């Protein structure tokens, strides 16, 4: 049986739908206490007084922590830097009287029950001294400056230096277009609110406690590092467990303030503490940043793009330079000699932005891919044809590296075929259905296919079960299932005999789940460790001189159906459970490390690609836009599990619809505060908004990205959708709507 490539059902599915799968706020420990966060009403200034007496007077309230009485924590900024921290000085909860953004935590009430803590929190009264604040990016664009460079820049390279002379080429171009796009902020809003349960364990001889921390995170080791550094605890004292994540989308890439507060309170009170944020408080930390982009394209009349200028200015906090790759994609998709790509930041009185599904990619793609559509209209060319004409075979933003694989052409052809693109009348306003205008639009998508370092452990138990583990996360992408498939195939075992575990710092190190890198990174480690375990088993099987495997080398054998077999004579076999029995009653285990070989992979540019085709209906009298159907064709290397893969792409497409038509964190700049901070008013699609979605995976072979030939699919599904929808709205109405989301008021006025 081969599992890779099969639509294996989620191995943890039954646990999730029956409630057996536990999330961070569901781990019950004895004598638990409950923390509730008090949030700042002010955006900038300082707390002049904070009165906790009324709260403390309530029986059952244990403590109210504020900047005035908080326990001492580490002094240096360095200690507050998690693995995903951008350059700057990380936010420290309850550090001092200063208020840096609206919604900042100013107190933590800890009580014997959640209800009591929540009530007591309502009695904490703060007075403030207000300072002038800046939260409006568009009002301060002129002050944008180059971002600081740090470790994070390794994964997020700044734009390449300009090449050629885009201004001159633009003037010489036969046709040109220019556009400006404003994207509002968005908040991740996973279903599961951020929560941490800290179990206070025994203390060592120096009085330092052992803490078991159930945290909502996309990387257990990241939370461990953060806690150990700040609270001066040895790593051995900090165990972080996070087996299930109720949606991440990037929000769990960095530790959020409830982790700090829960650990602080637990250590100070010597009690187990749980802190859960409210939905409103989910709007008080990282988010997709507000971005303003300007794009100019020039082309010769035959459709050759001759000049590109793409500039992005994004908001960040006053304390960290959070950056995204916004403009580089333009250079990757269109290899044009005269290109200028620029990216700047404007610090504002907000919390630091944070990676959110295809960070920067979905933002930049919307700008460049609507610009390409506009150029196609200027040229009188079909948008697919224009893209094929300017197809890039190499990535000049990475020093002209060839792509390890790029089946984007197949995405265009197959997507267009499935969608029926050739029936399209390019004339805007030419298609109607009832009183609705119908529009067809398309766009290209691109995302990284990166790989990092990871470790994994594999154990074959005495009863012949395989247990594999690595401290990665499964934020819903299908990691549990796919790692199980890889392990089962590598050692030729029935999938029922294989279990994969994740999300625990007692397991071998893996990076946080993000950037669509888990399949490449952890998948490779799982394959590696299973192969290494197989080699150990072969050695064990051939230990005895009489064994048929005595002389056998690794290349001579295969694992199939729970057996080790000789390739040349499959009848010569040994059951794996019998091989373990030769190990003196002990299980056989192995731990391996896996990382890309920079000498090979470093020579290539590694990316996923997609083509999104969308049909919209626009009711022009009333301004409503409905995405009636969409086809996304994806070039994502080898598809490990078509079921979970499709689910990832569908999820990305739905979010693309959300981003294009609905989602927007609305700030009132008078108060510097996000106002629609709940799920009734922060709109994401409901089932009634989602119609016919179709996914195609094109054949793509890639031996470079990793030994599995698979690329991550977590993000590529969203990337092309907003541009394809905006282009479809133009085709329907003849009106370019540059800013997102495209709401009723933007369609009409």
């Amino acid at each position, binding site marked *: 049986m081969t599992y890779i490539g099969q639509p294996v059902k989620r191995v943890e599915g039954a646990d999730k739908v029956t409630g057996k799968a536990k999330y961070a706020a569901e781990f019950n420990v004895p004598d638990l206490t409950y923390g509730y966060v008090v*949030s700042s*009403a002010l955006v900038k200034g300082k707390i002049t007084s904070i009165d906790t007496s009324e709260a403390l007077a309530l029986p059952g309230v244990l403590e109210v922590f504020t900047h005035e009485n908080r326990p001492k924590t580490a002094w240096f900024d360095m200690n507050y830097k998690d693995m995903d921290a951008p350059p700057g000085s990380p936010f420290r909860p309850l550090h001092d009287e200063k208020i840096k953004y609206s919604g900042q935590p100013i107190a933590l009430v800890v009580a014997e029950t959640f*209800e009591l803590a*929540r*009530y007591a929190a*309502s009695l904490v009264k703060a007075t403030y001294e207000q300072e002038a604040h800046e939260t409006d990016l568009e009002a301060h664009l002129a002050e944008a400056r180059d971002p600081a460079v740090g470790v994070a820049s390794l994964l997020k390279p700044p734009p390449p230096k300009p090449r050629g002379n885009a201004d001159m080429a633009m003037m010489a171009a036969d046709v040109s277009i220019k556009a400006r796009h404003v994207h509002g902020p968005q908040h991740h809003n996973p279903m599961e609110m951020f929560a941490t349960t800290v179990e206070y364990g025994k203390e060592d001889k120096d009085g330092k406690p052992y803490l078991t921390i159930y945290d909502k995170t996309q990387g257990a080791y990241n939370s461990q590092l953060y806690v150990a550094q700040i609270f001066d605890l040895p790593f051995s004292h900090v165990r972080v467990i996070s087996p299930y994540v109720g949606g991440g989308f990037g929000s769990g890439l960095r530790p959020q303030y409830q982790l700090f507060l829960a650990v602080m309170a637990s250590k100070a009170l010597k009690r187990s503490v749980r802190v859960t944020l409210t939905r*409103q408080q989910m709007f008080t930390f990282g988010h997709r940043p507000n971005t303003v982009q300007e794009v100019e394209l020039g082309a010769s009349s035959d459709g050759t793009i001759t000049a590109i200028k793409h500039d992005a200015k994004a908001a960040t906090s006053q304390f960290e330079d959070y950056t995204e790759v916004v403009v580089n994609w333009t250079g990757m998709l269109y290899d044009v000699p005269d290109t200028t790509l620029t990216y700047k930041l404007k610090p504002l009185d907000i919390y630091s932005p944070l990676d959110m599904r295809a960070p920067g990619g979905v933002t930049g793609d919307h700008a460049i891919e609507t610009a390409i559509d506009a150029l196609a209209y200027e040229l009188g060319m079909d948008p697919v044809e224009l893209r094929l004409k300017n197809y890039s075979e190499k990535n000049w933003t990475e020093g002209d590296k060839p792509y390890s694989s790029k089946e984007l052409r197949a995405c265009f052809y197959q997507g267009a075929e499935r969608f029926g693109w050739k029936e399209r009348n390019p004339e805007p306003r030419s298609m109607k259905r*009832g*009183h*609705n205008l119908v529009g067809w639009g398309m766009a290209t998508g691109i995302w990284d296919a990166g790989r990092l370092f990871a470790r994994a452990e594999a154990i074959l138990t005495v009863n012949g079960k395989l247990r594999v583990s690595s401290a990665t996360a499964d934020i819903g992408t299908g990691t549990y299932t796919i790692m199980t498939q890889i392990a089962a195939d590598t050692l030729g075992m029935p999938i029922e005999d294989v279990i994969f575990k994740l999300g625990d710092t007692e397991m071998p190190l893996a990076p946080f789940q993000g950037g669509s890198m888990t399949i490449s990174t952890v998948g490779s480690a799982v394959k590696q460790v299973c192969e290494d375990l197989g080699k150990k088993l072969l050695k064990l099987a051939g230990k005895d001189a009489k064994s048929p495997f005595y002389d056998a080398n690794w290349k001579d054998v295969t694992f199939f159906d729970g057996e080790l077999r000789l390739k040349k004579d499959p009848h010569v076999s040994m059951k794996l459970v019998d091989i373990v029995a030769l190990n003196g009653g002990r299980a056989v285990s192995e731990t391996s490390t896996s990382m890309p070989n920079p000498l090979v992979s470093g020579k290539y540019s590694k990316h996923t690609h997609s083509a999104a085709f969308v049909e919209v*209906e626009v*009711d022009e*009298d*009333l*301004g*409503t836009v*409905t995405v009636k159907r969409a086809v996304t064709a994806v070039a994502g290397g080898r598809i490990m599990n078509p079921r979970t893969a499709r689910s990832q792409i569908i999820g990305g497409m739905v979010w693309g619809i959300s981003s294009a*038509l*609905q989602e927007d964190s*609305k*700030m*009132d700049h*008078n*108060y510097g*505060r996000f*106002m*629609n*901070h*709940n799920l*009734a*008013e922060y*709109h*994401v*699609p*409901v*089932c*009634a*908004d989602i119609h016919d979605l179709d996914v195609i995976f094109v054949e793509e072979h890639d031996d470079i990205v990793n030994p599995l030939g698979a690329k991550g699919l977590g993000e590529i599904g969203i990337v092309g959708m907003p541009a394809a929808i905006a282009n479809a709205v133009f085709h329907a109405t003849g009106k370019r709507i540059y800013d997102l989301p495209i*709401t*009723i*008021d933007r369609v*009409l*006025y």
Partner: protein
Amino acid sequence: MNPFAYSRPDSIDSAIDELVTEPAAKFIGGGTNLIDLMKENIEKPSRLIDINRLPLTDIVELPDGGLRLGALATNADTAYNPLVKERYPLLSQTILAGASPQLRNMATNGGNLFQRTRCYYFYDTSMPCNKRKPGSGCGALNGYNRIHAILGTSDSNPLTTCIATHPSDMCVALAALEAVVRVEGPNGERTVAMADFHRLPGNEPQYDNTLQPGEIVTAIDLPANGFAQHYNYLKLRDRASYAFALVSVAAGLELEGNTVTNARIALGGVAHKPWRKTEAEELLVGKEAVAANFRPVAEKLLEGAKGYGHNTFKIDLAKRAIVRALTEAVTMQKATPQ
């Protein structure tokens, strides 16, 4: 959420007595809005008087051909009630355009009348709001007011300014149907016309309705005419379901041939109460039911409308929605995505 007492009276009289004795108490029916408001520290009742045991769940026919909707009948039971579907399809359609199935299963008809505004500033206790905290100001007036009112607002005195809207869908249809709210209180029973039940903010934006202290809604009476042949509820919102109306229109028409003999139009999402104007409706009587005759009606209904920046688009959108709603009420072909 503040600590509160809880009681569960068995009769309407004892429910009224409890409220009279403890004015800071609140009735709770389905609790779909009140519990949220308590968690947000907006409502802080000293006691919840659970009225779910009162015998107010029936939907019964009235001798004059009308229908009485019990205050404790759920929104879902009302929308799917055969008599409501047959005689008042406008009401059924309207209820189903609101909230979600889960909420409609819990929410009661009486409770629906008492929904509080979804104004962001009302919902956020760190913001000024004259409705939540009289005299504290209005954050919405110069703030992010895309969902706010354009008609009947109060904006001259900073201490009483309020541009909030009433969020209910159901009430918009009830206004169009000229429903009558039945109320009991310490001074006995009385009836309140739907048009007089909710109020404009005026100088007291803290009051949403005209109910007197100690009063309880027992039923909503629907008059015999349900406009069942030509009706429509058109709701424009930012997504296809589970969103409050930016603008909504409840329309009922009676036609002879293609001539209008009777018209009712109520707007939602535009004011502190469902918005009706009988002069606008009268403009239609005796006219042909065509779009050209609907536009003056829309203009009349929006007379005096005022935008506050982000919500100015609602003025024109409402006019467009009125024309579309009436057009579809005539043809009964409802193809507008909403």
